[in-house]
């Protein structure tokens, strides 16, 4: 059933009917308004919500969708997720008559088998009608909920056998009818959620969407519905043209990649994502045929909507950043996503963890494949961790608390041509705000011991990856801890001859006889004072390390991103002196000899 729904939901949608002529300037002004309204909606939620994952991690993404279900505008957020709402809304639109859509209505959906991302990602949306009662636009807002009412707190279960284990699946549900909250349905949602903060979050989402609907109504009043429709058509068309213009400049050909995930959550190894980016003139096809479809795989099933979103987020990072983000992107790209594979699973598969992996590997595969022809814009927009260490306990009143582990860290910040990896993560995650020690320790019985970057964990390269941090934490009370490790066997891949990042690793009960290194998934009880130690993977390198400027290597060593040993081994740079004495110098003679030898061995030319 779901394949048919997916096919229907992704059928190309027609432009909106309009008799208005539009000029480029007006269309651009209306797009600016869309972006501003989405920004306002996201800010409203970010400030009003109570769950850390929304207001702190900023996992909230506002978008505007037109009456035909096309993405018309987006704001700040997480690129991958900004592209997901339209399919969820399209499913809602299919029951427009049945659900008696009208002004003042607000809906919610989250069901992966009906256009949704994964269950925690609730899309709340409200229609905007003109004065003649015609549907013009839909304000959508998607945000990650801290719980979904499934078997495990948080909605992520390493052993979920189907979607029902993960929580409440909602194809479409009306929350507000003609401006009046439906207390029955809202109570149902609240009852199916463990977190007391959910009631506040859903209220905040509703009021944020209502504010967006109001702003869009004013915009339509001002410009007329016909002009707004014409602007939407114009901007979508323009994006498609600009994207295709870029593709025209790419050399025709087939660019392939295969990315592996260590294992699924029960240890089935080497989960494969295949990508073939086919460039023909101004046409780009992403063919994912060959991607894994083993029915026994557990919890590595990415939802259809997410596969599209993650692929597009990577593509959007590889073209000019000022191309407007809207349906034109999807109109310009054909995606072949094999039915029944981990990238378009059969109905009722669990979906929560699949939205991490293989979701990010879809983006990574696009990046690796196209890095051959787009070196300047190749930087994987990924997070290669399986799961951080989620720590769950109860306070003295028996209330659950959860330290979700979205802590300050550096991970997967890769280099691209001309720029070393920097900051905490890839650009796409630059809106996330990571949790601090002083906030966390004031709330939870934990003690953070360390979270500095580890020397030599960034992939070496002519431009190097940012190292990953080592986050060490002590729990001060007995807790449950849940985690899932990947990128241990297959860490983030270097590009164009750059080295891979160092792998992830994770240990529980450090320094005790019970110390274990975690492979795959684990749900464990930890006694008070247990120590966990999580090494995040670094960013990957770009182009061969022997091409890096030796002066830059020297600076890296002084800054302890790179060790003296690795400078010699990976970069062929021989240094004298010590970091402690701050007297590192390059031995040029030895360096030149060593580099010549390494270049010859590797067949690298300057």
């Amino acid at each position, binding site marked *: 059933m779901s394949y048919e729904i997916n096919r229907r939901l992704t059928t190309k949608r027609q432009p909106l009917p309009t008799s208005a002529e539009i000029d480029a300037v007006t269309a651009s002004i209306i797009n600016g308004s869309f972006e501003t309204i989405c920004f*306002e909606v996201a800010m*409203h939620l970010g400030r009003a*919500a109570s769950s850390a994952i929304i207001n702190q991690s900023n996992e909230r993404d506002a978008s505007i969708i037109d009456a035909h279900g096309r993405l018309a505008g987006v704001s700040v957020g997480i690129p991958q997720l900004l592209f997901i709402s339209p399919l969820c809304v399209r499913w809602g639109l299919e029951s427009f008559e049945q659900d008696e859509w009208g002004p003042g209505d607000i809906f919610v959906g989250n069901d992966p088998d009906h256009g949704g991302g994964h269950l925690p990602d609730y899309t709340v949306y409200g229609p905007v009608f003109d004065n003649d009662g015609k549907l013009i636009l839909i304000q959508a807002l998607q945000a990650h909920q801290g719980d979904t009412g499934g078997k495990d707190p948080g909605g992520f279960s390493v052993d979920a056998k189907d979607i029902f284990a993960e929580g409440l699946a909602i194809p479409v549900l009306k929350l507000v009818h003609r401006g009046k909250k439906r207390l029955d349905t809202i109570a149902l949602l609240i009852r199916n959620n463990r977190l007391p903060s959910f009631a506040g979050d859903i209220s905040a989402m509703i009021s944020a969407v209502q504010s967006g609907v109001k702003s869009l109504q004013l915009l339509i009043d001002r410009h007329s519905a016909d002009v707004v429709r014409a602007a939407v058509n114009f901007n979508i068309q323009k994006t498609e043209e600009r994207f295709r*213009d870029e593709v025209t400049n790419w050399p025709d050909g087939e660019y392939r990649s295969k990315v592996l995930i260590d294992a699924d959550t029960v240890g089935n190894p080497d989960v494969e994502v295949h990508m073939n980016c086919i460039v023909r003139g101004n046409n780009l096809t992403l063919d994912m045929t060959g991607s894994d479809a083993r029915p026994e795989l557990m919890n590595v099933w990415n939802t259809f909507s997410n596969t599209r979103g993650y692929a597009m987020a990577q593509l959007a990072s*590889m073209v000019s950043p000022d191309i407007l*983000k809207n349906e034109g992107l999807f109109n310009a790209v054909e995606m072949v996503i094999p039915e029944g594979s981990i990238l378009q699973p059969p109905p009722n598969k669990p979906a929560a963890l699949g939205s991490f992996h293989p979701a990010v590997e879809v983006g990574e595969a696009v990046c690796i494949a196209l890095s051959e022809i787009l070196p300047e814009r190749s930087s994987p927009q990924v997070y290669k961790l399986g799961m951080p260490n989620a720590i769950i306990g109860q306070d003295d009143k028996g209330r659950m608390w959860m330290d979700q582990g979205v802590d300050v860290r550096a991970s997967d910040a890769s280099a691209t041509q001309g720029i070393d990896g920097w900051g905490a993560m890839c*650009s796409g995650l*630059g809106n996330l705000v990571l949790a*601090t020690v002083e906030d966390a320790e004031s709330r939870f019985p934990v003690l953070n011991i360390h979270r*500095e970057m580890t020397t030599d964990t960034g992939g070496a390269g002519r431009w190097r990856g940012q190292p990953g941090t080592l986050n060490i934490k002590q729990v001060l009370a007995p807790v449950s801890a849940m985690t899932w490790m990947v990128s241990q066997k297959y860490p983030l891949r270097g590009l164009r001859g750059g080295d891979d990042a160092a792998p992830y690793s994770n240990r529980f009960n450090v320094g005790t006889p019970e110390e274990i290194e975690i492979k795959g998934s684990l749900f464990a009880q930890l006694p008070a004072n247990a120590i966990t130690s999580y090494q995040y993977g670094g960013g990957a390198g770009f182009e061969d390390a022997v091409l890096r400027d030796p002066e830059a290597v020297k600076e890296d060593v002084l800054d302890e991103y790179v060790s003296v040993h690795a400078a010699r081994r990976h970069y062929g740079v021989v240094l004298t002196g010590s970091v402690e004495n701050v007297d590192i110098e390059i031995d040029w003679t030895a360096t030149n000899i060593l580099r010549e030898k390494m270049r010859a061995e590797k067949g690298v030319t300057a």
Partner: protein
Amino acid sequence: MSIYRVGIDIGGTFTDFALQINDDIKLHKTLSTPEDRSVAVINGLKHLAEMEGFSLEDFLKKVDAIIHGTTVADNTLIEMNGAVTGLLTTEGFRDELELRRGFKEDIWDVRLKPPIPIIPRRRRLGVPERVTFDGTVHKPLDEEAARKAILRLKKQGVESVAIATLFSYENSAHEKRLSELVRELMPEAHVSVSHEVLPKSPEFERVSTTAVNAYVAPRVTLYLDRLVQRLHENGYQNELLVMQASGGVMTREYLRGSPVRILASGPAGGVVGGANVGVAKGAPNLLCVDMGGTSYDMSIIRNGAAPAQPGWNWHHRYLVSVPMVQVETLGAGGGSICHVNKGVLQVGPQSAGSAPGPICYGNGGNRPTITDAILILGLLSDESDFAGGSFRLSKDGVRKAFEEHIAKPLNCSVEEAAFNCWRVVNANMTQAVRRVTAGKGTDPKDLAMLAYGGNGPVFAAIQAQELGIDRVLVPKTSPTFSAMGALTAAPSIDEERSYIVPAAAVDIEKLKEHWTKLVNRADKFFTEAGFKREQIIIHYSLNLRYPGQNWSLTVDVDTRDITQNLSFIDADFCQFIIRRFEEAHEKEYGHFREGEEPEITGVRMVATADIPKPRFSGGFNVKEVDATPSKYRSANLGEGFGNTPIFHGPTLSPGHRVAGPAIIEETFTTIVVYPGWVAIVDDAGDYQLFNKKNKKLN
């Protein structure tokens, strides 16, 4: 005896002066002297002295207060030429500054470069020590290791040391000891200690603020010391007051510990001045817009105050978490370059600046700018004096550049091209205002607009119209508005201490202790600066949030003078603050959570002192009469070209009325009265513009 006060604002091009003698204001502008900015200050003061018929020395002896806004800290970050800086922090946590809690400025652009490090990793060193959330020492400070780290900084030529350890706002012993060790081993170095610079959580915000403080401190201190010395040499006998980002002013002594507080203080002066003007004219809720050559600055004033918020304030790619008047900047000014990119007309963010400047300045600029566009539209003229008569605009090359860069790619006429530039910059500014008000519970249409800066009044009324605002204020002092603002800014100390606790479980004694400490600190600095105790007013507030929320709301608790005790903390105090918080939450976000208990996150205190600030007025007691235009010219005020009356500003006086479409040419600015609008000169000689359909005409 007359009161003499001087406000001084140093900008990139001009140094502005506003001299207050009782309620009278005199303005002056002189060229800035970038090599030693205090030279221009003395030059300007000499001019003011001459205007008053005094020698400089006699004049300065009379002056009660000099209040000064400076961009020296901003310039240090723009030019990246601050001190060689090092950081000592808790072992295991030296990368916070670089990781930025994950923040990156652009989520789509993989080619965004990292910020230039103000403290590279080799100069960020961890020291074994640890304090926990309640101030307990978990691991004592390892002094041997600390000495080693300090010597490693010394070896690297470090001039300024930032010290920031975990939970130092709860227990500062380790930071204090570290600073003693630095002073012992590096006696020449400047020291910035986080529990003094910003004693609050969380660590990234505190570390970053302390690092920026350390980076700018030596330059700021040197500058202020030199200026004070020159003023004193020339006869000035009082304290120099310096503008802070919070919109308040304070003494050099207070700022010595945290000079970062003057960062971004330039625009704050204008905003504070705006608040005073707004209140005087019955418009306590204001949107202030300042459009100059390169940028468009926006800020919101509510209930006559410019709220200063500590928190997520990014400046020059660094987070500075001291309270700042919220001024948002858009790269849209008169010099912003207009260009067509893949069929889309864009304005800015690149700017031709003041050199070469717009094409019409005739200084070699050859890219179309907004100033050039509004010259084509006739809003400006090449037949009138520009910028106070310093030069005239020229149309040479303007049309050709618009033809080539805009009209041709957009397939339109030069006039349409210019008009489109006007539309785009208007739309950009409108969107920017909306972003500023986003999520803050403010609807722009409930505000009046106050426009200043050379280009602000050109666009103000049309902007106002798009935002639903129907009243615009253009003060006659708008060209030197920041200097004016300095005169109206109250001395203030705005500080906060972290205290995280469920509101219902608050320890009243601890709360009192926090407030008492803050008040004593303010008392010391105010008294030292010569203020009388009964002049000092204390505003007590608390920061609260629901558990799980990241951003707190500041809730006002009480206001009283410093001699009164904390008697407002009574048995019902917890219920009182919870109720206050719920009201604030409802107002900001449209809901509050019934039955859910908020938590306190911080104790805040703002101490201010009353000052003899100039009084503004704003009534319309003079009978209205239509002003007479001095000439006509063809201009496009949004509805196509038409013969438009031009008024000469200096000839207009209170009661004069100008109905749009019309243009008023003032000495340093141009006020465009758009169709449907009317401008009236109020009793104070300031312009007030009204949207006619809403203005009840007398």
